């Protein structure tokens, strides 16, 4: 078992609700927990339990109603939209269930996309993208468009895009939800490798208990609250 000492994500009294049709629906209530640097955790729970909302908050694509959310020592709940965008570009790698690749860009260009927000030169970007694509085993698919790739291959491109900027955390929302078992195993093995060999902190939302086993720890959410009896 790895030894995690430094919390990279600190969540305190986090609350989030949505307004729908004049009604306020509480999604997360007073959530508090830490995620240590280099940890790979799985967030599980039934539909509507708030796990994706929690992931969105940690990734900085949604804002909490109250509470504090520190990632790498910075309270992202207080950042403006523009600052949050810069922060995401530098600190978060996203892996989505449906890959979310740009259909008009090749695998190479999709992976290169986040690097356009950096000061890297064209040659430096090329070098990094080629390395990332080789790490996910897609050196022979560089010039392929997403529509020319299988689901598993598309998710590998998405993973390469997620870690290309060397982010502090990787967030994955049902990364195997749209894949067959063999491809899912492939993706989970890849996430484990990223965690083990590159020390990436990974927070993964999943419905699949089999996928969750790839993580070091599992957090269960039930009706917007952490199920402390089931950690």
């Amino acid at each position, binding site marked *: 078992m790895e030894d995690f000492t430094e919390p990279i994500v600190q969540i305190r009294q986090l609350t989030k609700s949505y307004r729908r049709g004049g009604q306020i629906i509480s999604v997360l209530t007073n959530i508090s927990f830490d995620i240590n640097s280099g940890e790979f955790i799985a967030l599980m729970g039934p539909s509507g339990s708030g796990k994706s909302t929690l992931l*969105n908050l940690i*990734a900085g*694509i*949604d804002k909490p109603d109250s509470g504090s959310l520190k990632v790498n020592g910075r309270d992202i709940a207080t950042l403006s939209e*523009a600052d949050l*965008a*810069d922060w*995401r*570009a*530098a600190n978060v790698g*996203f892996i*989505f*269930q*449906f890959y*979310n690749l*740009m*259909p*008009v*860009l090749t695998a190479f*260009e999709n992976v*290169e*996309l*986040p690097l*356009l*927000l950096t000061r890297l030169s064209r040659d430096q970007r090329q070098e990094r993208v080629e390395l990332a694509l080789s790490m996910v085993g897609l050196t022979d698919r560089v010039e392929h468009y997403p529509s020319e790739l299988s689901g598993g291959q598309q998710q590998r491109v998405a993973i390469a*895009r997620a870690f290309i900027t060397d982010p502090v955390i990787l967030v994955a929302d049902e990364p195997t939800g749209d894949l067959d078992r063999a491809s899912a195993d492939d993706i989970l093995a890849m996430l484990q490798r990223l965690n083990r060999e590159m020390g990436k902190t990974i927070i993964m939302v999943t419905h699949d208990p089999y996928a969750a086993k790839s993580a070091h720890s599992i957090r269960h959410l039930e009706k917007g609250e952490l199920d402390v009896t089931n950690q």
Partner: protein
Amino acid sequence: MHFLKLILRNTLRHKLRTSLTVLGLVVAILAFGLLRTVVDAWYSGAEGASSTRLVTRNAISLVFPLPINYQERIRRIHGVTAITHASWFGGVYIAPRNFFPQFAVDAKTYFHLYPEYFIPPAEMKAFLTDRKGCVIGRKLANTHGFKIGDTIPLRGTIYPGAWSFTVRAIYDGDAGTDTSQFFFHWNYLNETMKKVVARRTDWIGVYVIGISDPDRAAEISTEVDAMFKNSLAETLTETEKAFQLGFVSMTEAIVVAIRIVSFLVIFIILAVMANTMAMTARERIGEYATLKALGFGPRFLAGLIYGESLAIALTGAGIGILLTFPVADEFSKQVGTLFPVFGVSLETVYMQAAAAIAVGITAAALPAFRAARVPIVDGLRSIG
């Protein structure tokens, strides 16, 4: 580089939709250009007017003539450098649809006041020595295939009878010069009328007065009109431009209608383009959300939408503008001498381009605003 690549590839993503939108733009920009050219043609007479020429006509109406003996009295006014006259003939060449303007002019003086008509000296000499000779413009010659030495028969309407003229000279002019006119000797008309209707002799349509100082135009005009105050035929003198604009004002309603239609065409294509961009942005909302999640700001997304909209608009405009020239040429041939000067001006091209840019920017405004404002979570929810 990626930015432009994304714009280009997004533009070509739905080839049929993009092609149809571009086609719509081509038709709209072409129609806009053509209608603007028609409006320009309407004003071409006034635009080509000289500031050193005044026109004196009967104060009651242009249809009433003036006596020939006014000529010498006007010539004596201080500041008048030359004087000539012209009379509308209004003959029919074979059929009324072959209309072209015909004037009986004082052959010896008329062309001195119109240096914009280029006539080879030998042809001018031939015209001056042939009482039944005529001078025609290049456009008129080309329209009907007239050559030097050809006989042009006209059926008189204002001046009854069968008239026959021999082409002795063909004049040219620069792009703004009306070369669809027909000139012949007023002396021939006057002598013929002496034999047929004696009371209609020694009258002319309008005097054209050459002046040395355009700043004195108003002063000289007043002096001319004062000279013939309370006479049998009072005069109205104005600058040549004002005289030409008087003709345009008679048909002002048509010009206004054409102008309105030209802008309506642009408004319609704006609606089509806005619909295309709204559909496009709605379909890609998940992609925009992904780009925002990756750290791209609202400006980048707005840039993508504006870029795509402008790419479509400018492609349509480019093709539309290029097609305006041959279509305008063909239109000019079809309408014959109805529009003596019919050419696509640089100003029209600028207006076409400006209209396309305005359409491109306006059509993208709302989709860009929405894409920039969409919450990432909501946008991502649309995928799957």
